[in-house]
């Protein structure tokens, strides 16, 4: 019984410590750039990808290699914002384009 209690206690401590440990800056940067790339692919699928987005992701990935993780996060977050904005543009335009046809 004592062994079981100790096992549960250690497992709980391990879980707490594991969850509380902040992600490494590099992991955060990689996650940001991966998220941006996923959004960029969705933008490409919508047919409205902007020319600037893939360049930002490339720059972000280069910053990771150089160890500039904050720069990478900032650049890839901007890329993700662009990708989401272009997806939004596709949605908006699918409703608005007809209003521009001359009568």
């Amino acid at each position, binding site marked *: 019984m004592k062994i079981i209690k100790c096992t549960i206690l250690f497992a709980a401590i391990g879980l707490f410590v594991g969850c509380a440990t902040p992600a490494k800056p590099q992991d955060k940067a990689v996650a940001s750039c991966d998220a941006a790339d996923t959004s960029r692919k969705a933008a490409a699928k919508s*047919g*409205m990808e902007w020319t*600037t987005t893939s360049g930002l992701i490339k720059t972000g990935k280069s910053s990771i290699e150089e160890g500039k993780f904050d720069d990478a996060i900032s650049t890839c977050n901007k890329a993700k914002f*662009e990708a989401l904005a272009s997806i939004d*543009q596709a949605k908006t*335009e699918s409703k*608005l384009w*007809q209003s521009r*046809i001359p009568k």
Partner: protein
Amino acid sequence: MIRTIVLTAIASFAFSQATFATPEEDRTSYTNYFTNKFTGMAPAEFIDGVYALDPASKEQWKQIEEFPPYEIDVDTGEGLYNKPFANGKTYASCFGEDTSAVRGKYPNWDAKKEMVVTLELDINNCRVANGEKPLGYKKGPIAQLSAYIAMQGRGNMISVSIPSDSPKALAAYENGKEFYYSKRGQLNFSCADCHMSNAGNYVRADKLSAGLGHTSHFPVYRSKWGELGTLQRRFGGCNNNVRAKAFEAQGEEYRNLEYFMAYMNNGLELNGPGARK
């Protein structure tokens, strides 16, 4: 009950009229837009592109056209057109003996393939059918062949048809129309923003041309390119200008766009190849 049915019918009719104008109604409205915007200009004048809107530049352009920069390309295109493939056949085996009639047939709806077919696409179809490798779609030999064919077809009228018995052809036209009027890119511009609303206005040092007449004079020798290029090369350039990722030349998006734009130019004279800034 009857009142509801009548109101629904009226609303449906109004909606259908607002949403689904026929291509011919579209073309009339499109043409009127430009003739109202540029009072005194006849539709036929728009085939000169930006030079139709800029008398000073038009004079310079006329002088350029006396010794046109595309002349050598047209000659090269003629040589390519008549040079037999490895199997002994030439492009005439695909396009027929009357070269002057070729340009006016494109773009068209291919009922068998259920797609819009452009001149450049059919040049490559012809090559592949005769065991040759396809050419790149934007410049070089395909633009030279296209220039030769365009030169032979000068003076004919643009006459694009949308088969009335083909909903897919109409859908392709509508897709092209949607592309034309949809804003895209980081700069949020549609084709219509530049070439309708802002036609005749300056973008930096250059005047924007009117959309009416756009497809009449391609391929063009652009001074900026320093060479000949196809219409779909220009589409890609326009998309890049507004920071929208360009589509593949001769992909479905640009073929449908060309179909719509060429239909809007029906009744205008073919005057390609052209020379532009």
